[in-house]
């Protein structure tokens, strides 16, 4: 079976595509909207914004999240900011420039039309959020403040202290609660989606587990929207929230949704290093810190002096040295690999030599401690709390960590997956960031998808189908429910010797070692041998205590790990086939003489889309070719 990878890119010049598409869309008559029901899984920026906006339009929405409140989605943790091409600073920004930067930053592996639309609607996002009361940072004149962020040469990032994600999510959450109050949205919290139900080739519902009672239920709708976030936790240690998982998209993949570019992972350069084997997650230090902090390591290998005792002349500000034009602000993938390289050379600092300094002494001297505290106070506090060290006195120690996945379910221009009626938003889809995401662009994409794209494209879909027609007794519903129940039973019956976390850590080590910052064929092949062994061990020897009819956090984690154990393998497969380096995917065999990523546009200027072929067969790889008409293919250079 082949996947239908028609991207449905609208006709016309790029600036007019979205307008043309909207004009051509079919509309659902206002009086008919309430006849249609929509399931939205996930209440992060993408899902929360979608559920609220669809409720406002009058659809009957059921929204789901696994936390105890929609306000707690992982989006809440985003610190740095959100991009928008407002050009309020008069510094040369424009929709085209944001589009250009995003395509180039993504190393020419994203679909131009989608990225352009993202840049276009970015300006509406800011307006909408301001109207909701999101307290963005402001200047004394009362206008919105901006900063430059993550490698951009214009100041287009809007922020709310170091809590931008929190404030944007609360805006979406409040809009959602308003719809819950008026009854257009029914909210199911502490519910985990375990499967999609596909009837006659269309997504018609989901199977969920009530995490308090353990009840497994079927929910039916006319369309299903997934905004379930990223799968960085396949690495065990990442900056994602502990509960972030791949289950929703993975089960959709197994029901026929194509998986786009699973290997594209973003490793963030500025995280707090690991402190011990009990480490449960990694903490990001916002990259906005790189605006005022300088990154360095000692010039000498194995230098164990305290940072303050190392004289200027014996420090290597390696980013400033290697990339004079961008210096400490070069893109994430480049900064991460450079950190790994200097640590591999034996020049890393802190326990195990896995760290580099991020030093504020110079900017504290220039701007004063108060200014730095105003800009980064909460980040400095967080650092001090976690490490017990004072970053105003001594430089921070940082190290790269898994942070974001550009890969996800393949979607067309309308954000529809290869299963009709199944739409995917936010980090869960593969869409706009190509092989590398720019800082402050995930929040932008999540809200663009949720507020401004899905309300149109979903309407267009619904206008072409009849509401209803399926109920819980349909054989596909019964089968999906039975399968989910069976999996729970199996997990609970193994009662082996290893805990879920034991096995998750093993998987994480393999992923980080062989499918992390640097990848090569030999390592990936090794990982492809190891992962099935770990998976086998899991299904033979995991110990999930307790029962299924109660709140059982071990069971929740086990179900998620079962999916990570399959997804990890697909990531390695994808990384192995992609014989080039691009963005966050760095194949050591494919680098320039200076050690930079070397793309192979002849062979790989495409998105790889994987199709599930059953448990016992290898998945099939399809491609969506990418054409660059507006931004010409060029080697990225940040020198």
């Amino acid at each position, binding site marked *: 079976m082949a996947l239908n990878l028609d991207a449905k890119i609208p006709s016309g010049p790029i600036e007019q595509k979205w307008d043309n598409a909207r004009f051509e869309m079919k509309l659902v008559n206002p009086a008919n909207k309430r006849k249609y029901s929509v399931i939205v899984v996930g209440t992060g920026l993408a899902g929360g914004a979608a559920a609220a906006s669809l409720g406002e339009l009058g659809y009957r929405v059921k929204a789901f999240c696994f936390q105890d409140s929609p306000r707690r989605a992982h989006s809440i943790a985003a610190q740095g900011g959100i991009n928008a091409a407002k050009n309020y600073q008069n510094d040369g920004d424009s929709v085209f420039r944001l589009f250009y930067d995003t395509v180039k930053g993504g190393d020419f592996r994203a679909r131009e039309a989608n990225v352009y639309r993202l840049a276009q609607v970015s300006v509406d996002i800011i307006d909408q959020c301001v109207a909701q009361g999101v307290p963005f940072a402001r200047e004394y004149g009362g206008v919105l403040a901006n900063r430059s962020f993550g490698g951009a040469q214009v100041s287009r990032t809007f922020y709310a202290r170091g809590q931008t994600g929190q404030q944007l999510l609360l805006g979406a959450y409040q809009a959602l609660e308003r719809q*819950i109050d008026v009854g257009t949205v029914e909210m199911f919290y502490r519910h985990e989606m375990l499967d999609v139900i596909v009837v006659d080739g269309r997504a018609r519902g989901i199977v969920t587990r009530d995490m308090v009672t353990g009840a497994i239920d079927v929910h039916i709708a006319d369309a299903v929207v997934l905004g379930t976030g990223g799968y960085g936790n396949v690495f065990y240690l990442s900056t994602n929230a502990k509960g972030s998982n791949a289950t929703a998209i993975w089960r959709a993949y197994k029901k026929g949704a194509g998986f786009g570019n699973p290997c594209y992972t973003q490793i963030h350069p500025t995280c707090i290093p690991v402190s011990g084997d009990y480490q*449960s997650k990694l903490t990001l230090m916002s990259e906005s810190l790189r605006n005022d902090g300088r990154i360095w390591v000692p010039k000498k290998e194995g230098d164990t002096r305290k940072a303050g005792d190392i004289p200027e002349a014996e420090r290597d500000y390696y980013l400033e040295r290697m990339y004079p034009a961008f210096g400490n602000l070069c893109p994430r993938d480049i900064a991460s690999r450079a950190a790994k390289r200097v640590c591999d050379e034996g020049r890393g600092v802190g326990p195990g030599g896995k760290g580099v300094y991020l030093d504020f002494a110079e900017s504290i001297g220039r701007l004063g401690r108060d200014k730095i505290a105003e800009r980064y106070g909460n980040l400095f506090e967080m650092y001090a709390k976690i490490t*017990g060290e004072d970053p105003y006195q001594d430089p921070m120690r940082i190290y790269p960590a898994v942070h974001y996945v550009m890969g996800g379910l393949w979607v067309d221009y309308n954000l529809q997956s290869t299963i009709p009626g199944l739409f995917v938003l936010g980090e869960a889809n593969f869409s706009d960031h190509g092989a590398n995401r720019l800082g402050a662009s995930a929040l932008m994409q999540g809200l663009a998808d949720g507020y401004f794209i899905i309300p149109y494209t979903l309407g267009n879909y619904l206008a072409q189908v009849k509401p209803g027609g399926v109920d819980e007794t349909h054989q596909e519903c019964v089968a999906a429910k039975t399968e989910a129940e069976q999996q729970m039973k199996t997990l609970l019956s193994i009662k082996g010797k290893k805990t879920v976390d034991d096995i998750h850590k093993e998987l994480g080590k393999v992923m980080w070692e062989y499918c992390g910052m640097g990848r090569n064929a030999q390592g990936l092949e090794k990982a492809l041998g190891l992962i099935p062994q770990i998976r086998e061990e899991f299904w033979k020897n995991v110990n999930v205590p307790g029962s299924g009819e109660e709140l059982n956090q071990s069971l929740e984690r086990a179900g998620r790990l079962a999916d990570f154990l399959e997804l990890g393998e697909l990531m390695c497969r994808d990384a192995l086939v992609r014989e080039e380096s691009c963005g966050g995917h760095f194949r050591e065999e494919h680098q320039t003489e200076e050690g930079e990523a070397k793309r192979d546009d002849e062979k790989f200027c495409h998105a790889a889309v994987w199709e599930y072929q059953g448990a016992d067969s290898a998945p099939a790889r399809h491609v969506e070719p990418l054409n660059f008409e507006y931004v010409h293919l060029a080697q990225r250079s940040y020198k």
Partner: protein
Amino acid sequence: MNMRIVLHIWRQRNRTAQGQMVRYELPNVSEHMSFLEMLDVLNEELTRKGEDPVTFEHDCREGICGCCGFMINGVPHGPQRLTTVCQLHMRHFRDGDELWLEPFRAAAFPVVKDLMVDRSSLDRIIAAGGYVSVNTGSAVDGNALPIIKQCSDMAMDAASCIGCGACVASCPNASASLFTAAKISHLALLPQGQAERDRRAIRMVAQMLEEGFGYCTNAGECEAVCPKGITLDNIARMNRDFLKAAITYLEETAAAGGA
């Protein structure tokens, strides 16, 4: 440095079951661990022994999602000021310390299991009016409405609330006043929030009482334990808004022919 820590943890299977304190001893706690990482270690051990691990809520482990929170020796989130329990590190404890962990207790926060409670009552307070009614797509340009920086900063202070419920747990009356006031203040301080200011205050306060939260008697415990530093002035602002609205808003709606 490694320490020996003794924990007494509230164990309760579900909402209706009887609960009790159970003693656990951890001989080897690293000072660099977070408090929750210590509980992870305990849970791994319990699992290996075939016992039921301790249920506690958590997600971001960065002090921002508001999932985590339980009492440590009678104090929500434990002894460190302005710190959620996920950000609390063991270096603030001493070898041999004995700690009592209990869920947040309030009539409006029924226990789900062990240290986990149901805080959906807080969502329903927000649903009663903690928003600006502006549909997607109807906004004007973000800079069309200049906002005094100081107001915006104060609104941000109030908006920093993470909805963890520590304020409720610390309050002798189990009042959710600090939580409710933080949202009322956030929106009352901004021009966008003015149109619905009266209705918001009336509806949110009414919902708070309906959920079974108590009245505020100015005990001030909430401010002392709030991990995000939300201050009592917010409650004063809420009370003013509520009183004013109670007079004017009811009159207006009555004049308009209904409430």
